[in-house]
């Protein structure tokens, strides 16, 4: 009797382990395997198309190269040029939105991502500050990158549109920070206008 019970228990344990292995294997197969899928897919938009995500609307209008900075007219340093991405940002929320939430990157020559090499964000309509973006007012911004004059575009120039969410620390004293930027759209650019 005791021996039969012991045998039964061993068979149940072995059967249970085997069942778990089978279920896990099926789950891996159904989900496409363990191979890296290259990350989240990002929607592709056209120049001039609206991208709405994270309480804002973004429209990439153009990408230009120039030795003169738009607005101020400042000349680029020797051997350098200004790479300018013109974007219209609209705050769709009910509170002020800072441009730190709305980041732009581009692959041009070296990898110009939105975290490290954005030189500045200028307000095209004038003023010393691009922030805060008021609710409901479309604002044209120049995302200005300082690039070598010898920089050349990659096979496909793509503007990346990112968002960075505000994260709240202490809910009483209002400590805030920003999370890591995440992409919400990619905009292939057929032509970078060279303004000399």
């Amino acid at each position, binding site marked *: 009797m005791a021996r039969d019970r012991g045998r039964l228990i061993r068979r149940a344990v072995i059967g249970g382990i085997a069942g778990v292995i089978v279920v896990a294997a099926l789950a891996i197969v159904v989900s496409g395997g363990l191979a890296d899928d290259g990350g989240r897919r990002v929607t592709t938009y056209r120049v001039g198309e609206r991208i709405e995500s994270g309480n804002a609307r973004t429209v990439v209008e153009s990408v230009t190269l120039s030795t003169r900075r738009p*607005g101020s007219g400042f000349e680029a340093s020797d051997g350098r040029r200004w790479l300018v991405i013109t974007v219209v940002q609209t705050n769709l929320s009910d*509170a002020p939105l800072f441009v730190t939430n709305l980041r732009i990157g581009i692959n041009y020559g070296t990898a110009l991502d939105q975290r490290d090499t954005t030189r500045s964000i200028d307000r095209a309509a*004038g003023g*010393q500050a691009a922030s805060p973006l008021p*609710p*409901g007012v479309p604002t044209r911004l120049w995302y200005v990158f300082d690039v070598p004059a010898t920089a050349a575009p990659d096979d496909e120039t793509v503007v990346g549109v990112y968002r960075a969410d505000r994260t709240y620390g202490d809910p009483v004293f209002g400590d805030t920070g920003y999370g890591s930027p995440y992409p919400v759209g990619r905009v292939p650019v057929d032509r970078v206008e060279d303004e000399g």
Partner: protein
Amino acid sequence: MKRGVRIAASLAGLAIAMIAAATAPQDGTDIAAPFLVRGVEGDVLTTRLLTTRLDGIELADALEQDAYSSPRIDTEGQWLVVHLTVQTRQSTEGLSAARLLLDGREYGNYIGADDDLARIQNGPGIATSGTLVFELPADALRGAGAGHAELRLQTQVAPTLDDVPTYTLDLRGAHRSAEFRIPRPRVVEPLT
């Protein structure tokens, strides 16, 4: 008798607990909200940090300033110009976190003007007159709240449990111009 006293005490405790539970702050209640000290144009308001007076408001399509790099500031919307006299009481303070509340939306004052009053940080007892500007949508005055917008002169983004000068604004009757030239802030007679 003792049993009756115990029963009465228990019932009293239960009643107190029920009242406390019913009157306790609910989820979403802002228990850390600022205390608003209210007034209208012309009123001098005194709070812990500031003494202020609202001297007037007007609307403009564009701003002009004596700045070589940015002499003109345009917008797709409209500019609300707020004329103020501000005097700090205890320490140097700034108004870069001022807020305008209109129809459920919150607007921050634009901080990109060279002569913005928000950049001025004079010492206690020195009154300074100047302007703050807010960028509003083109249709902002069509809402029901245009007659009672609220200007909060905050010295920080989250003025937790602090008092804040708060002026009620009627935007519907504000004078409108094509351009408004931002004046340089100037020191004036103290408000108090």
